[in-house]
């Protein structure tokens, strides 16, 4: 099973939030693997647990209330969940870095953006102040910000520019893996395109692997070779972009596509998925998608389907596709 080129291998990850109001099952048995240089799109609705997975990889979940209950996250052959805090510091921002959803709040308002980009450089590489500064200016220019803005503060930048700063910060140490959590959701559409294009180019140039978290299938189609669809803390379908887009297998993925407006479609109305995501503190017993599934049958209510391979590399978690029903 062991693949040498495997960079990241998540197995059976379970994360819960424990609050006064009960236990929230945010991530329930999550499996994911990624090869070096690959780009994977993690798609799903808000609250499906995508961000939780990303934060679990970096071990920056707020504890309490979040608790990683079981599973393993292997990165370059090491289980991150077993690593000491000191070793983890060496990985964060160096080998794995993360881009956050909201550029407006992700930067420290009282430090210059230059200092903030230089910080991971100085932590992870034994370099002098001036070298770190040089590297920072390089990074700034790489993301299209003039180097003289080094000593300006976040409030002097627009949203799109801030996101560029954050990208520069994330890439400053040439990470092996970049976790991008809805990197463009908070931005204007025109700026979205710019930022995405820049990210795609940087990824190519630096040969970084990417996990792109988004609810926007269009972005995934543009950026990723592999796609995993997340629903209620589980992956319901995964495969190559071609598998997902052209050989859609899971009813939820189908629903996602149907709820997208398409110019060349003959359908006159959008078909949104009925109902809401189940309450994560009170998940249904069988298939999590069952209450909203147009094809649901008796077995779906009782038994959570296994994750099975339909064609090589294309996995689906559904009774119907397996032929049980």
């Amino acid at each position, binding site marked *: 099973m062991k693949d040498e080129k495997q960079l990241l291998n998540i197995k059976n990850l379970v994360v819960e939030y424990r609050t006064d109001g009960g236990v929230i099952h945010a991530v329930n048995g999550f499996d994911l693997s990624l090869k070096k240089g690959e780009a994977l799109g993690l798609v799903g609705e808000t609250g499906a647990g995508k961000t939780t997975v990303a*934060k679990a990889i*970096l071990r*920056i979940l*707020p504890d309490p209330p979040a608790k990683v209950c079981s599973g393993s996250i292997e990165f370059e052959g090491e289980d991150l969940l077993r690593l000491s*805090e000191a070793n983890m*510091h*060496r*990985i*964060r*921002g*160096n080998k794995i*870095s*993360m881009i*956050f959803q*909201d550029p407006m*709040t*992700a*930067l*420290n*308002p*009282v*430090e*210059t953006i230059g200092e903030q980009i230089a*910080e*991971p450089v100085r*932590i*992870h590489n034994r370099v002098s102040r001036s070298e770190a500064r040089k590297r920072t200016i390089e990074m700034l220019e790489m993301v299209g910000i003039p180097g003289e803005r080094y000593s300006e*503060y976040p*409030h*002097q930048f627009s949203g799109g520019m801030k996101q560029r700063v*954050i990208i520069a*910060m994330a890439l400053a140490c040439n990470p092996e893996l970049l976790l991008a959590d809805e990197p463009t959701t908070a931005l204007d559409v025109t700026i979205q395109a710019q930022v995405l294009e820049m990210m795609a180019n940087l990824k190519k140039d630096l040969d970084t692997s990417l996990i792109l978290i988004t609810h926007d299938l269009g972005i995934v189609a543009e950026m990723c070779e592999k796609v995993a669809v997340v629903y209620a803390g589980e992956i319901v379908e995964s495969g190559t972009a071609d598998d997902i887009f052209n050989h859609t297998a899971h009813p939820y993925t189908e629903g996602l596509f149907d709820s997208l407006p398409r110019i060349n479609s003959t359908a006159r109305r959008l078909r949104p998925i009925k109902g809401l995501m189940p309450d994560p503190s009170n998940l249904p017993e069988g298939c999590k998608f069952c209450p909203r599934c147009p094809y649901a049958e008796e077995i779906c209510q009782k038994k959570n389907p296994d994750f099975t391979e339909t064609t090589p590399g294309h996995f689906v978690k559904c009774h119907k596709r397996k032929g049980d029903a």
Partner: protein
Amino acid sequence: MFQYIIKRLLWLIPIMLGVSILIFSIMYFTTGDPARIMLGSMATEEQLEQAREEMGLNKSYIAQYADFLTDLLRLDLGTSYVSKQDVFHEVVTRAPYTLRVAVLALAISILIGIPLGIVAATHQYTWRDNASMLLSMLFVSMPNFWVAMLLVLLFSLSLGWLPAVGVSSWKCYIMPCIAVSLSGAAAFARQTRSSMLEVIRQDYITTARAKGVKENLVIWKHGMKNALIPIITVIGTRVGNMLGGALIAETVFSIPGMGVYMLTAINNRDYPVIRGTAMIICIWFSICMLLVDIIYAGVDPRIRSQFAKKKKRG
């Protein structure tokens, strides 16, 4: 930054003018006849009238205020009704004691309060958090002068470690400073805890963690600098309490500062002294608030640039 300081300094002028009007007016509409207080109950009506004339008490409100203000600008706070001494001179000789207590107490309370608050915030819901918050709740609920009395009871009368009164050595300052600083330390601890908790949940703290910054640095570098902004505000407002507390503590420990001077004056209805000392304390307080605002701008770049933007528009 420089322009900000200048602007803030200029703002001090109308504030001080307003404060002087307020204090003058409160004292102007006071009950009782100053001439009578000065001369005692044996004075004849003629003597009283003459004294009123000399003191300018027969002039109109406006004229009297104008006198007060011009005197103030010449550093003349008038003469005491009782001792006939120059108030400004008395204040100058006594001020160092009061300032010493107030400044030391402020320093102590910051040094105790802020670390305590951080420990509480980073160990939320543990015994450390509960203990430090309960303790600070207790400290903000005790009258300063009572704390002072309890300290005297314990350290002077029971244990005999520290002198109960006087200013003969540095040891004499220990109890007054602690008595004044406790409630401040408690207030700072509470504020530090709550703003630290607020800051810890911000996205940029997660960003810092994701960058691989060590937990200690996350708290002290990224967290503290942001949490400091509301803490500075509270420190500013507490300076007033510190000054007031110092005045009161002086009377318990018989320190010959402005507190004893003012309190004696209150009992004698010696208005020029009360007015003068109150005015001086307000000036100190305003200067402290000015410093607070400057520190504020030093910590928070948004405040600096807010000013810069206004400048461009204006």
